[in-house]
């Protein structure tokens, strides 16, 4: 049993050819299809929403400017995320900052004192999960985010975070295990 390559958009080669020729619709489609993945990846990297949004734009500008240099040895998404990673590293080097561990004690995240309102309960749960994700070590955090939210293969994640496919798989399971310890200790 095999499946089609999930890392490429259907008709990606044709889309890239039109984007290289400056077709605005093709450029818009490339950005529309991938901006969520790039934003989430950069958010996991930088842990700051404004910086992630800004770096997402910068990464796309670089990628679209260099489309002629893309030879298709990897998927466009992999290439885009590697450039986004470099953009984030450059940002970290130039500003010399990265949000430090902003977290409280893990026990605090498990509290059952949820508000009666459903929306508030959900928002509180989302905040707890995101706070726990932020606490993971960098490679685990990036790997879990790419796998959990954007369903990348372990091989593709390895290319992006500069590790082997096997290491990406191990990082993912370690990360999920830690999140269970912090968020759901009864079943961990």
């Amino acid at each position, binding site marked *: 049993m095999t499946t089609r390559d999930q890392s490429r958009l259907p008709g990606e080669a044709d889309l890239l050819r039109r984007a290289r020729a400056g077709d605005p619709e093709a450029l818009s489609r490339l*950005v529309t299809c991938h901006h969520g993945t790039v934003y*989430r990846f950069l958010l996991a990297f930088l842990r700051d929403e404004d910086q992630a949004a800004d770096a997402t734009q910068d990464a796309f500008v670089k990628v679209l400017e260099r489309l002629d240099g893309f030879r298709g040895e990897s998927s466009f998404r992999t290439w885009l995320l590697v450039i986004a990673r470099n953009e984030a590293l450059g940002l970290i080097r130039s500003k010399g900052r990265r949000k430090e561990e902003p977290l409280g004690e893990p026990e605090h995240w498990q509290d059952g004192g949820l508000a009666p309102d459903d929306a508030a309960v959900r928002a509180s749960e989302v905040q707890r999960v995101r706070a726990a994700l932020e606490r993971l070590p960098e490679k685990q955090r990036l790997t879990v985010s790419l796998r959990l939210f954007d369903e990348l293969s372990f091989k593709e994640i390895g290319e992006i975070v500069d590790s082997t496919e096997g290491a990406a798989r191990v990082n993912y399971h370690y990360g999920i295990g830690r999140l269970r310890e912090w968020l759901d200790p009864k079943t961990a």
Partner: protein
Amino acid sequence: MSDGFESQITGPDPADPCGWVRDHLPLRSSGIGDPGLAAAVDEHLAGCAQCRAEAEFVDRLRQARPEPPAGLVEATLKRYAERPRESARKLRWGGPLGVSAAAVVAALGFGLFAINRSATDPLWSLALDPEPTAWYGEEWIVAGGPVPEALSDDQLLLLLEEMDP
């Protein structure tokens, strides 16, 4: 459709079905790319309480998926459309290359100027002393300046003329 790139997902590993299923839990909601694989995962979950608990936990985590801010696509396309063009950057001489070229020209000009001056001007000769460490010896310095006895007659005369024209 497959274009030969990686991500070819095969079925559950009989030696480690739980490991295979847990690897693919995040892909379950999108069907793991193949209805047969999704059915295989569901079948395993029906009979494995531990994997079912993990599946519920993964679903819970996925609820926290961050979404990009509204307008990010438009802002990105606008930034791309309004970016400084490569050709304009080259002409503007504003980049690192332009700064480097300006620094080289300035250094060459200053060097030529100093060499010409030093041929006739003893103070310039002093400033271009090939052994400037002599200036830092305590016996040459009083209150941060050279001791007059250390200067040649010509240099001393020039200093005195500058002090009392």
